[in-house]
């Protein structure tokens, strides 16, 4: 009886392992890029293969979704480092973020040689605003502390804007997606009202905008981490100001200098894997926007992903806006544009992205 049981176990497990393994191995060998593995291989090539194999398992979404349900049942409210509350998902792994010293140093370096005025708004994620709903033993630090520490490392000439308290005060409103770390367009608008006054303009009042819901099926980065089915999808909005100024051109530049036409709202992205690319068409090293505002004011925005939904509000005030995404860059900023052509620079940086090494490109100047 025991022998038959062993035989059956061997047969069942072998069939399952071989079927799963063949698919995984096939997908890994087809898609693998040695550069990706090299980049990830700090803990040994095996470590990189371990995480890469997770992306190649057949029916990955189904596995993660099932894992989330099992984890929820046996481990309580935390799934893959995401806290599952009654009405939203919150990143509980914020204590694992890297140091902000490199980013702060690069911004200081930039401010050192830049001739214009530099402003910065460090934007909290949903963990910063709703973190107090998570038990303290799960959320071991706060984003407020991280923002304060980041600001304390910046040069005194850089003008700081307190986005955290603005958003905290508005926390009852729909300022963050329930399944994403990023803010909604309304959250961006709340911060815009303060930022634009610091930059020397009066904000456009909220009631002048026509707000259009373009989809009710948005699921953000926290959903991708958990595939937690009980989380309701969110609405993505577009803010339009019919009586306002118009965008005359919107052009994006890749690292190799390729130019393509883009728009403030790329509705084609609604059919893509990441619907947040609706705003400015996703991350690109440089997007240059020209408007029919006749004041010859030019603004340089250097920002992380959350900046994309903020930029449409700025178009009402400047004749030209250049948006730089450090995450998408691989060479110095001066190879894309001359920052000193812009009299103001606004850093709009998600506090979850300050650990990125790409900020080093901001302070670098290409030798002419």
């Amino acid at each position, binding site marked *: 009886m025991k022998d038959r049981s062993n035989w059956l176990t061997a*047969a069942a497990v*072998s069939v399952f392992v071989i079927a799963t393994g063949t698919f995984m191995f096939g997908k890994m060998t087809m898609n693998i890029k040695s550069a990706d593995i090299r980049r990830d291989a700090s803990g040994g090539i095996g470590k990189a293969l*371990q995480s890469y*194999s997770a992306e190649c398992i057949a029916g990955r979404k189904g596995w993660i979704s099932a894992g989330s349900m099992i*984890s929820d049942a*046996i481990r309580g409210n935390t799934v893959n480092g995401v806290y599952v509350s009654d009405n939203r998902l919150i990143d509980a792994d914020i204590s694992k973020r890297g140091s902000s010293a490199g980013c702060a140093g690069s911004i200081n370096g930039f401010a050192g040689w830049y001739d214009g005025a530099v402003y910065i708004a460090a934007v909290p994620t949903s963990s910063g605003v709703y973190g107090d709903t998570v038990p303290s033993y799960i959320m071991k630090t706060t984003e407020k502390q991280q923002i304060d520490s980041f600001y304390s490392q910046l040069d005194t000439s850089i003008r700081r804007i307190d986005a955290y308290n603005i958003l905290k005060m508005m926390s009852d409103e729909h300022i963050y997606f329930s399944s994403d770390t990023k803010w909604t367009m309304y959250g961006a608008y709340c911060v815009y009202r303060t930022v634009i006054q610091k930059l020397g303009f009066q904000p456009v009042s909220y009631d002048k905008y026509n707000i259009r819901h373009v989809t009710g099926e948005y699921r953000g980065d926290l959903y991708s981490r958990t595939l937690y089915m009980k989380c309701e999808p969110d609405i993505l909005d577009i803010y339009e100001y019919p009586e306002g100024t118009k965008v005359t051109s919107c052009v994006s530049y890749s690292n190799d200098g390729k130019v393509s036409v883009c728009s403030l709202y790329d509705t084609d992205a609604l059919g893509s894997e990441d619907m947040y690319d609706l705003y400015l068409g996703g991350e690109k090293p440089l997007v240059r926007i020209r408007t029919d505002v006749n004041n010859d004011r030019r603004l340089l925005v250097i920002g992380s992903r959350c900046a994309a939904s903020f930029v449409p509000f700025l178009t009402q005030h400047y004749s030209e806006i250049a948006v730089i995404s450090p995450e998408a860059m691989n060479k110095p900023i001066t190879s894309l544009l001359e920052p000193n052509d812009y009299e103001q620079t606004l850093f709009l940086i998600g506090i979850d992205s300050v650990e990125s090494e790409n900020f080093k490109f901001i302070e670098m100047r290409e030798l002419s």
Partner: protein
Amino acid sequence: MEYSSLFFIYCFLPVSLLLYYCVPNKLKDMSLLLMSMAFCGLAGLPYLAYVMVFTLVNYTCARHIYILSSKKDGRYKLIPMAAGMVFNIAGLFILRMDCFAWIRHSVRLPEGFFPVGVSLFTLSATGYLIDVYSGKYKADKNFVRFALYIMMFPRLLMGPVLRYDIFKRILRTRRIGFQEIGKGAAVFIKGLAKKVIAADTLYSMYSSVDSINVSDLSAGTAWMGISAYILCLYFTLSGIADMGVGIGYCFGFSFPQSFNYPLFSSRIRYFASRWHLQVIHWFRKYITRSFSARFKNRYVRKMIYVAAWTLAGFWYGFDAGSALWGALMGISIVIEKRLSNSKMLKATGIIYTFLLTTVFAVFLSCDSLKDSFRYIFAMLGGNHALADMQTLYLMKSYLVLLIIMMYASTDLFRNILIRSGRSRIKAAINAAAPAVGLLVLIICTALIAYSGSSDMILLRL
């Protein structure tokens, strides 16, 4: 690389088994060695280089000990013996102790480099050198077999630490077949479940308590935290050990189990004889017995016994807290032997053993001795609170789980199976075993599908 990773379970293990089963018998050891080298190489080339150099040095030293001991003036065998011992022990200290980080930097080892299993294969190799030196057996000429003794991947991460003659016998008496794969798969899945389901869940409970400042801990929270720690430690170590044993079965080797349900033993000494069996046995054989034989005074012998336990504790963590854990275990066993007839001890056996081993575990879990004493102070209610909201929250979230895990860490279920004899219950369990095994494998796969692996936690040996 972890055993509990998708890449290992679904790519590395099936490919290595396929290769092993396809090659002729005389090449099986060589194929297994190549797969073991690949396993080490995947953990990083510095790791592979270290293991290869380690193997070569120990092989050479053992051969020279043997050759010199067979000559007329055998005292020169002390030279290769000393060289091998110094190399092994220095390597272990340099790689495991923070105070030697400057040496690691100076030889340009990558940041955070740690050859997993180094503590275990160092024990194996050191024991081998001592045995060859004392003439228990010859130094093996077969380099492939010796290299397998050091780096065979099924026993690389968690042992078992075996004597070389026992290892050779296991190699000689291997039984290859589809049924062995079934037996191995069942043991592997049991280990995987211990690690992925039990240990990782308990770890989230332990880390919840660990994140609270010790001076704010109520007694209830502190007890729940340290109970989660000891259970988590047990399920992690025994889970990885079971996975290794299961892989061994698949390759036809019957490695012994390393843990025999120690947690709810009725005496501390039973706990000690069931916890990491081969490691504790190694210290008893090579330290306690070797030194005790030279002294007749029983108090000196007791001191040697405690010192061996202290060394075993130090081997776990390479810090003062771990050494103190070992010393306390040794002292408790010595005292317990004196009180073995006490009625009090008989009545409270399981409870007092669990309480003591749990309190001792504080020294393994905390970063410093000061923190350990502060934690014990909190466990005794020294922070002026027996329970608080945190305790209630933890009880609400984890109490049922904790009780289930406590039950799972005992041998009660196994005893039911044994006592059921040839009854229908046993037949039903055997019939359901393949489906249950597959289901558990699917659950574990789902739980690690996001990250790709379940990493080693709490201790790195």
